[in-house]
């Protein structure tokens, strides 16, 4: 997977940051507008997937050399999985009590702990989908 032409690479480099910001917006405004952690997390994963498709798997330096390839692959996927487990453990604590003060409904800083839940669910979903995609791509480049 060598990547595409220079035009595609440059346009992707311009666009993916905007897509990432849009995903963050969807996650943060999950309690006000349609969206939330699930949709925003998938959009964030989509921005990284766009980068991998346009630039090739070397963009994440996952198989730079034969010796280091497994180390980098392992480290990259381990980081994503660590974030995923962190999101899993931090996102939904045991008793779901709304700890933080509520604020007035309709503002950005309101709804107590729901935005925090949304952020961690977004991280978990993004990490999960990105590791699924990277597993398929690395499997393809291996043989």
């Amino acid at each position, binding site marked *: 997977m060598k990547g595409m032409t220079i035009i595609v690479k440059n346009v992707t480099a311009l666009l993916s940051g905007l897509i990432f910001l849009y995903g963050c917006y969807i996650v943060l405004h999950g309690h006000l*507008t*349609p969206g*939330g952690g*699930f949709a925003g997390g*998938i959009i964030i994963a989509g921005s990284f997937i766009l980068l991998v498709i346009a630039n090739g798997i070397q963009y994440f330096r996952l198989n730079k050399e034969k010796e280091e390839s497994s180390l980098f692959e392992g480290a990259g996927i381990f980081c994503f999985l660590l974030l995923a487990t962190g999101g899993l453990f931090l996102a939904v604590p045991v008793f779901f009590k709304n700890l933080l003060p509520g604020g*007035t*409904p*309709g503002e950005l800083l309101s709804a107590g702990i729901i935005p925090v839940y949304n952020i961690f669910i977004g991280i978990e*979903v993004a990490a*999960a*989908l990105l590791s*699924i995609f990277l*597993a*398929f791509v690395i*499997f393809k480049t291996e*043989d």
Partner: protein
Amino acid sequence: MITYLLCFILFLVGLYGVLTRKNLIKIIIGLSVMEYSLYLFLALIGYIDGGAAPIIDPSKPAGLVVDPLPQAFVLTAIVIGLATTALLLAIAIRLYKKYNTFDIDKINTLKG
């Protein structure tokens, strides 16, 4: 009532695909079609005529909104559906690398 019936027919189309196709990719497509018909059925159940989307403006009195409970269920089910579809595709590609075919009959007979 005809929308419910069409939803059920869509489910049957997916079931037909799962039962009759020999290709692993088409079996996965049939399973996904069954999932989609289920999502649409749950969303149809929660719909109320004249209701607004379940986002309430706090400054105004609450009007008629559609049922938010089936939507919350379907929201989690969609993401799980993507993950299980990817899991099935991983199994399919692993079988393809081993047997060099997607035919489930050949995979069944070529043991070892």
